[in-house]
């Protein structure tokens, strides 16, 4: 572990020195530092900034401060009532201890759990561009079927981010160049030839909040996660959905997939297929298939196609049933 300096951030727009990193809950970054995968010279602790509030917006939306702990966000009555998919996703992740530490901003910015990325002694295009991706031929059972590239098939491991993608959340960012907003679905990049960059954030830009726009039908939303053991495991496939049904017909739907892509995968193709269609399991399966046409599975992860199709159908069928 490289020696580093530690200081606390005094304002969100202060930026960062070239080899500095922001530290929030530390549940991922500190591990990566111990493993020698992350080697910052300076850690700038953002948890002392006044960014830990959850506030209702005049339009019915909710603003979530970047340092709101995952446990607090999951337990918030407004989230549980208005956006149950988000609360469910948070509680499906990690363990109680980790959720008590992990923050909203940090959760979005966690790195992939790709086993080659997590090992500094292995080649990885995220560590060092051009060194190659051993996962394509090696272990990729839990890596991407959507959005990957020759250079990288990492998956984003967050549960929370999948729910935020379905809800159309917007990330608020502050930095030396001023404030800006980024839809959560645009926050993470697809790897292409430059997998070393996970997100569109510039160095020194800080997430200050996540805005949930008003979405009245999100009261009927759900998250379902498949994993290799009953708890304390990353998803091997997950689905976040919100459904608005009118007289047996899909009026509006929000759908996102987890553990299948380098980013939380908003299933816009499936959503488009479903609008105006009967809210039946058959429609839901067909919609999932339309989205999954783009899937490019590797040797050991084609099962994710079946898994996501089944999860989509199960979650939407349940939500449709609740609507009746």
């Amino acid at each position: 572990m490289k020696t580093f300096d530690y200081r606390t951030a005094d304002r969100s727009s202060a930026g960062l020195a070239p080899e500095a990193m922001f530290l929030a809950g530390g549940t991922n970054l500190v591990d990566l530092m111990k493993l020698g995968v992350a080697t910052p010279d300076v850690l700038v602790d953002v948890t002392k900034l006044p960014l830990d509030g959850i506030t209702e917006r005049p339009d019915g939306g909710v603003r979530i401060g970047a340092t709101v702990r995952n446990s607090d966000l999951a337990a918030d009555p407004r989230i549980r009532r208005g956006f149950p998919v988000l609360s469910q996703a948070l509680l499906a992740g990690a363990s109680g201890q980790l959720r008590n530490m992990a923050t909203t901003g940090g959760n979005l910015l966690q790195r992939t759990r790709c086993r080659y990325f997590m090992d500094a002694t292995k080649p990885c295009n995220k560590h060092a561009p051009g060194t190659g991706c051993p996962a394509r031929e090696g272990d990729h059972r839990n890596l991407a079927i959507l959005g990957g590239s020759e250079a990288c098939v990492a998956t984003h491991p967050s549960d929370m981010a999948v729910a935020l993608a379905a809800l159309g959340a917007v990330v608020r960012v502050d930095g030396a160049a001023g404030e800006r907003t980024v839809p959560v679905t645009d926050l993470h990049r697809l790897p292409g030839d430059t997998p070393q960059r996970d997100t569109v954030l510039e160095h020194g830009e800080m997430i200050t909040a996540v805005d949930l726009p008003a979405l009245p039908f999100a009261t009927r939303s759900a998250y379902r996660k498949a994993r290799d053991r009953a708890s304390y495991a990353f998803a091997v496939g997950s689905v976040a959905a919100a459904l608005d049904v009118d007289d047996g017909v899909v009026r509006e739907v929000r759908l996102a997939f987890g553990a299948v892509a380098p980013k939380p995968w908003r299933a816009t193709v499936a959503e488009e297929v479903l609008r105006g269609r009967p809210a039946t399991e058959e429609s839901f399966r067909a919609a999932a298939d339309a989205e999954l046409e783009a899937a490019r599975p590797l040797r050991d992860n084609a099962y994710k196609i079946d898994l996501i199709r089944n999860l989509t159908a199960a979650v939407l069928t349940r939500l449709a049933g609740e609507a009746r």
Partner: protein
Amino acid sequence: MTATLPTAVGAPLARLEGPEKVTGTAKYAAEYRTGEVAYGWVVQSPVPRGRLNAVLADPAADTLAVLWHGNAPRLKSGDDPELDVLQSDRISYRGQAVALVVAGTLEAARRAAQELRLDITTEEHDALLRTDHPGLYTPERVNPAFPAETSSGDVDTALAAAAVAVDVTYRTPALHNNPMEPHATIARWQDGDLELHDSNQHPSGVAATVGALFGLPPERVHVITEHVGGGFGSKGTARPNAVLAALGAKVVGRPVKVVLPRQAMFSMVGHRTPTIQRIRLGAEPDGTLTAIDHQATEQTSRLFEFAEQTTVVTRHMYAAPNRRTGHRLARLDMPTPRWMRAPGEAPGMVGLECALDELAERLGIDPIELRVRNEPAVEPETGVPFTSRHYVECLRAGAERFGWAGRDPRPRQRRDGDWWIGTGMAGATYPTMAQPSTARVRALADGAFEVAIGATDLGTGARTILTQIAADALAVPVERIRIRIGDSTLPKASVAGGSSGSASWGWAVTGACRELRASGRDEATFDSSELVQHQEKDGRHAFGAHFAEVRVDAVTGEVRVSRLFGMFAAGRILNPRTARSQLLGGMIMGMGMALHEEGVLDPAMGEWVNHDLAEYHIPVHADVEDIDAAWLDEHDDRINPMGSKGIGEIGIVGSPAAIVNAVWHATGIRVRDLPVRLDKLLSLLP
């Protein structure tokens, strides 16, 4: 007077060190304050095969020493090549210790280790076990000293003529020992003598082994092992951490602490070999077995031959006139497999008990009934009688407790919402062993007795049980026993392994206490060597039966174990509280073997790439729903003075097969490649 004392043995005495452990005051190896300790960080090879030409350290790095084969003190080679650390340029597996960085702080040592440059000439490697591996050979012996092959009758003819036959191949993956406390040592040299605070299962063995490497007789090495946070066999002998710490301390002239990080637990401490098991069974229509053939393909390393005794269990489980067992090994550029809870029995009973379930299906016979019909009167291969065998009673009583009667034998018949539900069972067995040990007892002035034996308590309750045994042997309440264990200077005890600790140490403690009472003196020492040497030659085994109810999610293929129940006949249960805990622990580890645990090999890297507890899954609390263990009141006074058979391992034997068989009953899918995970089920579910 003594007749009215309640017996301590058999009482559910709580673990004596429990309060210390839950308050954090119990000291584990790395927690001792030993002078001005320095920290060692082990540098592991990043390649599976090659030659280490040079180690280049930053001269400005804040270290006390960087040791490698180019500058490390010479060791006297012993019988375990994995302990000849930093002695040669040869790299035999990825993760092998190739250097030790010693620094004043852990952080500095780790940082310098990460920045070290290794000049390595890489060579082609071979890491993949396969049944057509050109290097497969039959070892002379399998662990610890069984013939690699046995054969009687004419298996091929019997199989060809069998009314019903199965021919199946089951695979178990590499499994990794992950006790909560990783391997750890603090080494200190004083006047040429060596002191080791070390986490292990055999302090006197570690003293002898490490001493020999440094040219010291065992009595000049003091190994202190007061508390151990689990071992599962991986701490049965000295591991490289102990030797590296001693080397480091010798060079820097300060005590050196080496604690293996979790990642190193997947390479340096010994794992269970992957196995590929072909099982062929032939039977009459009534279920009578006519032939059993069980062949295992498994791996060892280039450094050392360790031959997992996977098919040995088949030699004494069921009757059949024609039988054959065998083992073949491939030497790979991988770490050496070692002991892991129930070596041999745990993987072997996956193959045998799952194949029997398949045979029961083909025959249309209840799987319990099939086993009962093939119950042998004597050990099938040797012809010697059993000292006691209550397998059928375990099957019957377990079935009764579990509610097996009325089970629809057809698969995929029960559905509850999204869940397919099924039940399965499998047999269990483990050999009853004892090794020579010596114990000493002293009458103290205050009326108490000090009982001393160099045993170790891995967290299982050994300290407590020995106290109970001594109390009864001396006819005093347990409060008057002061037990001392976990130190190589105490009378020499055998390894805490092979489910033999209680029997071996209890035998010596009983002897010492009886001798004290008979002699009327205030100190007695007893060596059980002669008694153990002349112990019963008849077949000595514990038996049991596991029952599982699983549910399989029709949407996702996720498997959950709703119920797991084990019924055992393991001689006298010395302490029902600690015994239950050990049996349940074994069963949960069996659940992990069935559903979760797998070292995922990347053949190109020559490594299991999931080397931490986030990626290498073991069961968590949420995976364990309704679980219980019970036992028959078995009396066997021919095995040892306590009549105990050992319970540390039998829980993991058979429980994986019971779960795998239940998954078939739930879904109709036979997964023959463990662990059973959703990706292996999903596309086959209706």
